[in-house]
C-alpha cells in the first residue's frame, strides 16, 4: 500500500525540438484528487496523455501503481475521459458500453447498472446520434467509470458538461474517492475542481511550477494560485 498511485520522475516531452513538458516529477498517493491547472498550451493535456499511455514520454519515467503505463494490466486500472466524449454515434448506448466493456471484461449486469445510474436506461437502445448533449456526456462519464478504475484521468471534464452532468460527475467522483480511487483532472473551472481536490499542481510552460496540498486560500480566490506560483502575470 505504500507506493504512490502515480509517480513521474524527470518526464520530458518534445514536439520536435520544442519541450512541451520539462522535467516533470511528482508523486501522488492513493485516494488523492489532483487538480491540474495551467494556461492553454502549458502542457496539461500532454501530461495527462502520457499518464494514460496515449503518448510516450521523450525522457523520464512514469509509474502507475508501480507498473509501466503501456502494460495491459496497468491500463485496465485507468479510466480516461478526454475533451471529446469517446463514443460511437451510430451505436446505441448499450452497444457503446458493450464494445468498450469487452476490452475490460465488464459483465452485462454492470453495463445495465451504469445505464441506470446515469439515467439512460430508458433510451439505452437508440443510437447515440439521437441523444442530446447532456445525455451523451452522461454516457461518456459512465464509459469512463464502467470498469471500476483505480485511477481516473479526466482532461477538462467540466468544460463541455451541462449542469446536470456536472452534478452527476461530482457526486460520482466524491463517491469513488471515498473508496480510495485516485483522480487527476485538468481544468479551467477552478471552483468546481477546488471543491474536489486534495492536491493542486500548476503547470507553467511545461514546467511543474507548484505541487502541494490544496489550501483554504485557493477555495475562495480562483486567481490565487496563478498569482502566487505562476511566473508570468
Amino acid at each position, binding site marked *: 500500500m505504500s507506493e504512490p498511485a502515480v509517480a513521474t520522475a524527470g518526464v520530458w516531452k*518534445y*514536439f*520536435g*525540438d*520544442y519541450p512541451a513538458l520539462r522535467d516533470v516529477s511528482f508523486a501522488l498517493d492513493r485516494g488523492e484528487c489532483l487538480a491540474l491547472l495551467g494556461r492553454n*498550451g502549458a502542457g496539461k493535456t500532454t501530461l495527462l496523455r502520457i499518464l494514460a499511455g496515449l503518448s510516450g514520454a*521523450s525522457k523520464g519515467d512514469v509509474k502507475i501503481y508501480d507498473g509501466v503505463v503501456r502494460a495491459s494490466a496497468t491500463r485496465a486500472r485507468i479510466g480516461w475521459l478526454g475533451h471529446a466524449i469517446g463514443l460511437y454515434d451510430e451505436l446505441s448506448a448499450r452497444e457503446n458500453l458493450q464494445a468498450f466493456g469487452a476490452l475490460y471484461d465488464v459483465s452485462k449486469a454492470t453495463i445495465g447498472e451504469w445505464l441506470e445510474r446515469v439515467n439512460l436506461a430508458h433510451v439505452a437502445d437508440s443510437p447515440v446520434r439521437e441523444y442530446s448533449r447532456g445525455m451523451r456526456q452522461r454516457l461518456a462519464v459512465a464509459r469512463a467509470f464502467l470498469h471500476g478504475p483505480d485511477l481516473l484521468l479526466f482532461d477538462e471534464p467540466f468544460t463541455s458538461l451541462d449542469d446536470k452532468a456536472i452534478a452527476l460527475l461530482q457526486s460520482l467522483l466524491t463517491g469513488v474517492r471515498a473508496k480510495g480511487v485516485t483522480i487527476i483532472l485538468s481544468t479551467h473551472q477552478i471552483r468546481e475542481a477546488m471543491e474536489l481536490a486534495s492536491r493542486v499542481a500548476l503547470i507553467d*510552460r511545461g514546467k511543474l511550477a507548484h505541487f502541494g496540498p490544496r489550501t483554504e486560500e485557493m477555495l475562495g480566490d480562483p486567481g490565487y494560485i496563478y498569482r502566487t506560483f505562476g511566473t508570468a502575470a
Partner: protein
Amino acid sequence: MRSKIVLALGLVGVPLLLRNLYVILFNLPDEMEQGPVYRIFYYHLPAFFAATLCYTTAMVCSILYLVKKSARYDAIAMACTEVGLAFAAVNLITGMFWGRISWGIWWAWDPRLTWALICWLVYFGYLMLRKAIDDPTERAKNAGVLSIFAYVSVAITWKAIEWWRTQHPGPVLSIRTGEQRIDPAMEQMLYVNTLALATLAAIFVITRLRQEEVQREIDALRRYAHAL
C-alpha cells in the same frame, strides 16, 4: 567539423568524377556489340548502387530512430531517401536512353524497369507522407514505420519481378556471375565510378542534413514564440 568533411569528400569526389569521365570517354574501348553507347552504363549501374546504399541507410536509420527516438536518425533517413530518389532517377533516365538506342524504345515493361519505377513510387510516397504531417515527432515516427515497410516491400517486389521473363541485360560483375564476362578494365571502372557517385551522395546527404537541422531549429523557435 562537418563542413571540413564535406570539403574533404568534395576534394576526393569531384576530381575522381572528372578523371572517370575522361577515362570513360577517351581511354576505354567501345564495347564489341553495343558500340559507344554502352558507356552510359558507367553511370547507370553506379547510380543504382548509390541509390540502394541510400535506401538501406535510410531503413537502418529508421529502425534506429524508432528504437532510440533521436531526431538525428530521422533526419538522416529523410536525407538519404531524398538523395536515393535522385540517384534512382539518374538510374531510370540513363536506362531509358540506353533502351532507346539498344532496344529502339524508351520504355519496356521489363521487370527491372518496372521494379525501379515501383521502387521510386514507394519512396516518393514516403516523402509525400512526410510533407503531410506537421508535428515533427509524429512525422518522424510514422515515416520511420513507412520506411521499414517500403524497404521490405521493395525487396519482395524484386524477387517477384525476377520471375518474369526479362530482356534486361543480366548481371555482368564477376562477384555476381563468378566469372570474368567483361574486360577487367571496364569492371574496375564500374567500381571506381560507384565510389565517385557514392562520395557525391554522401556530400548531398550531409548538405541536406544541415538544411534539415536549420529547419528544425527555426520550427522550434517558432513554437517558443507561439508559447510566449
